[in-house]
């Protein structure tokens, strides 16, 4: 999708005023947090697994070329094909070419963040294909023509009422003329509408949670089973995955599987974890005749070589979003691109450009809760600070902030001057105040929702020195 990250502030403000969205966010937050905590408390080995996963990923990344080549060789040996794409444009072309060659008309899709990253749906539609999202959340936002607002729960921002109206508007063509508003009926209606898509699709496109080098397999973790229907019923299966998804062996995979579900939704295992290896075997009764993997770089090899390598450990569990108080206040759409929350604030600037997404790394209090819950031990606040440093070096920091910061730094480096200048300033602020001020020139941001506590009157240093002189 086209990034609108540069409009972060306006979008965030709108999101804060959107009461429907605020309800949806409030409802989602508590559940994710409690479920994760319960699941992790029940697994004494969690921290050990976390350390192990981190070590496995670090090892894999340090030999990424080796593992990618082994993975590719194994996919080929199993009868599949591997395609490489430097960026979204190339990836889209590869996917479209495969669909054309297959003479496809209808394409079903499983949820794929890489698919979102390369904006595959609009490209497929522009090329004359019908592309249907089959994950319920993705299906809902596809009908609403919106991007996902959460990497695990793409429609987390939608209320039941909104979904009712969406279905009512779109399902008439399927002969459904009644509004359904309870959760069970909504899910059933989607089930019946999408069944037809599953069995008539020519191509299925899914993402992959992991790629296993040892076996050439792609791993898909879902709860709905839509991914499996997407992979197994059409003639062609295309996997869109990014290069950092590879792990060496099935034994390594096991470590990640134990972390992923628990961190994402508090599940020990999602309902379906599927390991796909190549196209259908000769005598198989189902399965795709063609199995393609599109490996996307899109800035990742650059991250591998710079101070953002650790971000490549991310397994897209969404825990950092669920625990982020900023995400919890403004939701995913404010971030303006595919990824949101802490991981999005790191990835988006690196993928769509620092200037475009300059707000994202700054819109964070560096409170560290994301890092605390990240199963891959990614130091997200450190990543954000590093992006801020890049912004500062590239002069992307706002002029006013720069000015104020440099004045402060100038003073901080000159203790005498600092004390001489700030002493009267502090006094001035305290004059006539009864503890706080309702408004303050230059601090309107602060005073729009809170008072400004005024200083006691004299600085500590002046009081302390005076006291010492007396002694």
């Amino acid at each position, binding site marked *: 999708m086209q990034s609108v990250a540069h409009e972060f*502030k306006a979008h*965030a*403000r709108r999101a*804060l005023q959107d009461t429907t969205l605020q309800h949806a966010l409030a409802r989602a937050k508590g559940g994710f947090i409690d479920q994760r905590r319960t699941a992790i408390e029940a697994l004494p080995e969690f921290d050990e697994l976390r350390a192990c996963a981190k070590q496995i990923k670090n090892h894999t990344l340090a030999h990424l070329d080796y593992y990618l080549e082994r993975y590719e060789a194994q996919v080929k040996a199993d009868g599949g094909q591997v395609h490489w794409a430097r960026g979204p444009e190339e990836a889209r072309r590869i996917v479209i070419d495969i669909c054309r060659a297959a003479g496809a008309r209808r394409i079903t899709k499983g949820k794929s963040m890489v698919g979102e990253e390369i904006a595959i749906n609009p490209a497929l539609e522009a090329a004359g294909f019908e592309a249907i999202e089959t994950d319920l959340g993705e299906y809902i936002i596809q009908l609403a023509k919106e991007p996902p607002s959460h990497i695990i729960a793409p429609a987390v921002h939608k209320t039941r009422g909104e979904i009712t109206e969406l279905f009512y508007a779109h399902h008439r063509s399927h002969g459904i003329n009644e509004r359904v508003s309870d959760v069970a009926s909504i899910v059933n209606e989607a089930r019946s509408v999408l069944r037809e898509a599953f069995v008539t699709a020519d191509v299925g496109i899914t993402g992959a949670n992991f790629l296993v080098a040892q076996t050439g397999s792609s791993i898909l973790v879902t709860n709905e089973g839509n991914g499996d229907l997407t992979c197994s019923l059409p003639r062609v299966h295309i996997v869109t995955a990014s290069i950092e998804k590879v792990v060496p062996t099935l034994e390594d995979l096991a470590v990640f599987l134990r972390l992923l579900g628990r961190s994402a939704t508090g599940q020990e295992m999602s309902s379906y974890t599927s390991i796909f290896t190549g196209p259908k075997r000769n005598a198989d009764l189902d399965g795709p005749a063609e199995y393609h993997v599109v490996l996307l770089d899109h800035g990742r090899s650059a991250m591998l070589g710079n101070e953002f390598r650790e971000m490549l450990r991310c397994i897209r569990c969404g825990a950092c979003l669920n625990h982020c*108080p*900023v995400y919890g*206040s*403004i939701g995913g759409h404010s971030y303006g691109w595919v990824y949101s929350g802490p991981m999005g604030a790191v990835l988006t600037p690196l993928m769509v450009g620092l200037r475009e997404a300059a707000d994202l790394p*700054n*819109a*964070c*209090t*560096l*409170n*560290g*809760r994301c*890092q*605390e819950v990240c199963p891959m031990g990614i130091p997200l606040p450190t990543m954000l*600070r590093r992006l*801020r*440093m*890049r*912004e*500062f*070096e590239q002069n992307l*920091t706002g002029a006013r*902030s720069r000015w104020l*910061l*440099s004045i*402060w*730094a100038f*003073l*901080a*480096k000159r*203790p005498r001057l600092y004390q001489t200048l*700030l002493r009267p300033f502090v006094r001035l602020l305290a004059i006539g105040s*009864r*503890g*706080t001020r*309702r408004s303050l020139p230059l*601090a*309107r*941001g*602060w*005073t*729009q*929702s*809170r*008072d*400004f*506590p005024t*200083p*006691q009157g*004299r*600085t*500590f*240093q002046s*009081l*302390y*020195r005076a006291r010492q002189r007396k002694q």
Partner: protein
Amino acid sequence: MVEQIDSSPVRQPRVGLFVTCLVDLFRPNVGFAALKLLQRAGFDVVIPSQQTCCGQPAYNNGDARDAREIAKQVIDVFAGYDYTVVPSGSCAGMIKEHYPRLFDADAEYYEKATTLSSRCFELTEFLDGIGDGAALPEMPSCSYTYHDSCSGLRELGIKQQPRALLARVSGLSMLEMQDSNVCCGFGGTFCVKYPDISGRMVTDKVEAICATGADMVLGGDLGCLMNIAGRLKRIDSTVSVYHVAEVLAGKTDIPPIGGNSS
């Protein structure tokens, strides 16, 4: 945590107290409270006059050069003490966790930063760590709730220490708030750069505080406390805000942060 203090009469261990810029400018009472607590615990406390700010504003806004220069100054000023104590989790975290990282490419200062880091403590972790059994003051019976400031909590693991110390103040009772570990929305310059989001976060925090019914909210970081106090004042709440050091030192004789509610 803190090694056994040599209690021989020869020399009291010397503590360099870094009061932090916010305390210096806005709430000297916290500095005096920290001073009193440290002296009472038997330390020779020195407050270097050359101190200003720890450099977080520069560091957290991407200005690595200024952050480094300010850090050097702090490192030099506090080099001579057995301990450096800071009544703020975020400033102590800056010194302990981040100073060494600033000097990856400067062996001399890396060494110095690491030394300072190993001797630097946040006030409550220091006081709790030395475990002096000195009685803490009495308070007129009242209840409090505690906000865990993020840097102290996650960079330094400060959670139980202030609670343990406060439990020794007779007359106080604790009422935990929901999500005491969730950010209040201060975040240094964040609160002025993104006032809408910050406002929303402090609103949530203050709701959690008010829901406890406590008389006071305490914390270990003046920035967060000013943020919380400002919001409480805006909604005319009667909950009063103090820094944990002020309560521990019995220095609540001045109006709370943000003043008394009218």
